[in-house]
């Protein structure tokens, strides 16, 4: 990935983060988890998925299994022109379907979620159907690391491996936290990659905030070998806002509008410095 493209994605991700932040007031949202997967969704939707529009019959399918990070999905789709931003202005308004978890009637949501551990199996059904059709369309499931506590996830890993669904990617947003604290304190997952591998998945790891690294992992030709894929993306919960990053108590956030304004400044400040430096490098 060249530096200009990297810069484009970082700017896009910055706009996505600003938009995510707007969900964290007037009733709030799961801010930390949304910020941790923002770069993953930006990368997938703008670089990797075949996604001409939310209704294109040949589009790749992305299932957001950890549904509480839906602001990241809505923000990404809005920034890329797949979802009318006006719809997001009415966060939590009854009847408009923009709430704390994804609603399948919102353009771009392939399936609703919220109850953890469901979409790996739903994605198996979709991926199996695409195999039957000899389709090249791909299926990605975004999972939280806390979500891996659910037994149904491991059941689905076994089945996906057994059915050789190599058109299926399980992307784990490994931000290290679940609702009440670090995953390794609540129900330790490590050694995670070894576990996933033992379940029959082709496992790779990446820095989940580094677009070049993500491109290397998702673009690798070595991935096509009859096994479903697992990508463990190391991320930071709350990424982009230092006062929130990796704080155990920043799970569900509902800030006042003044607080949001100062968080936005914090987000702009950090990103501006970074983007400026990189722009200089590119020049």
């Amino acid at each position: 990935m060249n530096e200009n493209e990297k810069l484009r994605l970082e700017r896009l991700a910055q706009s996505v983060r600003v938009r995510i932040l707007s969900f964290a007031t007037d009733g709030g949202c799961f801010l930390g988890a949304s910020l941790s997967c923002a770069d993953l969704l930006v990368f997938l939707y703008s670089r990797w998925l075949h996604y001409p529009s939310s209704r294109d019959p040949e589009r790749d399918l992305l299932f957001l299994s950890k549904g509480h990070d839906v602001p990241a999905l809505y923000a990404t789709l809005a920034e890329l022109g797949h979802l009318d931003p006006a719809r997001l202005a009415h966060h939590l308004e009854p009847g408009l379907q923009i709430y704390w978890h994804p609603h399948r009637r919102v353009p771009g949501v392939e399936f609703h979620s919220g109850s953890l551990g469901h979409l790996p199996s739903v994605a198996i059904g979709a991926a199996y159907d695409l195999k039957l059709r000899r389709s090249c369309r791909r299926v990605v499931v975004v999972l939280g690391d806390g979500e891996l506590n659910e037994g149904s996830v491991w059941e689905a890993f076994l089945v996906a491996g057994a059915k050789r669904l190599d058109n299926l990617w399980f992307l784990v947003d490994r931000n290290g936290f679940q609702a009440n604290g670090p995953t390794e304190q609540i129900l330790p997952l490590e050694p995670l990659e070894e576990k996933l591998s033992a379940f029959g998945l082709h496992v790779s790891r990446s820095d989940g905030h580094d677009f070049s690294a993500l491109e290397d992992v998702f673009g690798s030709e070595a991935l096509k070998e009859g096994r479903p894929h697992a990508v463990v993306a190391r991320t930071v919960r709350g990424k982009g806002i230092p006062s929130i990053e990796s704080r155990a108590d920043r799970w569900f956030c509902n800030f006042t509008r003044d607080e949001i304004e100062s968080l936005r400044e914090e987000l702009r400040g950090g990103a501006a410095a970074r983007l400026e430096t990189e722009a200089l490098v590119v020049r």
Partner: protein
Amino acid sequence: MIESYEDRLFRLAREDDRILVLTAENRAPIRGLPERLGDRFLDVGIAEQTLVGAAAGLALQGRIPIAHALASFLTMRAFEFIRTDVAIPHLPVKLVGSAAGILSEANGPTHQALEDVALMRSVPGVEVFCPADAEDLVLALPAIVASPAPAYIRLNLRPPALTHDEPFEIGRAEFVERGSDILILCAGALLREALEASRRLASGGLSIGLINVRSVEPLDEGPILDAVRSAAMTVVIEDHFRTGGLATVLADLLLSKGETAAVLPISFPARWFEPALLSRAIEAAGLDGPQLAGRIRTAWRDRRRTT
């Protein structure tokens, strides 16, 4: 006997390539289908949650998945997947529960699905069918598969209790006998016993009506209510807990109309039944034909004495 369940399912799948047959390693009723259907047969192993989730994913892609598992594990272990992944988006997933009710025979309480109908009825938009026997099931299959709604079907491969002359329609009951003294409403596998009881009672001079309530949700409300109104006493026979089964369905119906009726509910009380081979299990539960006739006759006499 017209055709086996497996043959009918195969014929439907051959005619419509949207149909896939799934199972959580419950192959007894569909033993020959892996070979006959190839990759349109999907066995996920003993994994009911994944079975239901994968069925939802297939339906999302335009398929009609027909998913098999033991009734107790399908409706209870995977309940939330049914509710969340199948019912919320109202996908046409057809859930087939084996060994439901009395048909779990000698398996014991772990396998006794005596609340499956209650659970499935409680999920919005799910159609619930209790075929009376193998022929009733096969007759029902095309309509159930053609419906755009999610469905739960109690798999019942008992030999035909009678020749089913009335074509199957979703939301329609089969009127087997008409009579004015006692009306018997039966949902599911005990129709054979209910029929024997009705014949015994009829030979004793009583006028007995018998309805095979094949379709529990939606229910054939109008004709059933008319039959209940015109009978002096109604008997409900079901191999299900009293709570949430046909007796409750009838109570809800009467309540919604502000009506009452003299009803003898013959359901399982709130405990599990004695495991045994089918005929012994039926007998031990007091549900064979002569026992049913006796229970109904006693209730009829008690009622005559008090009115």
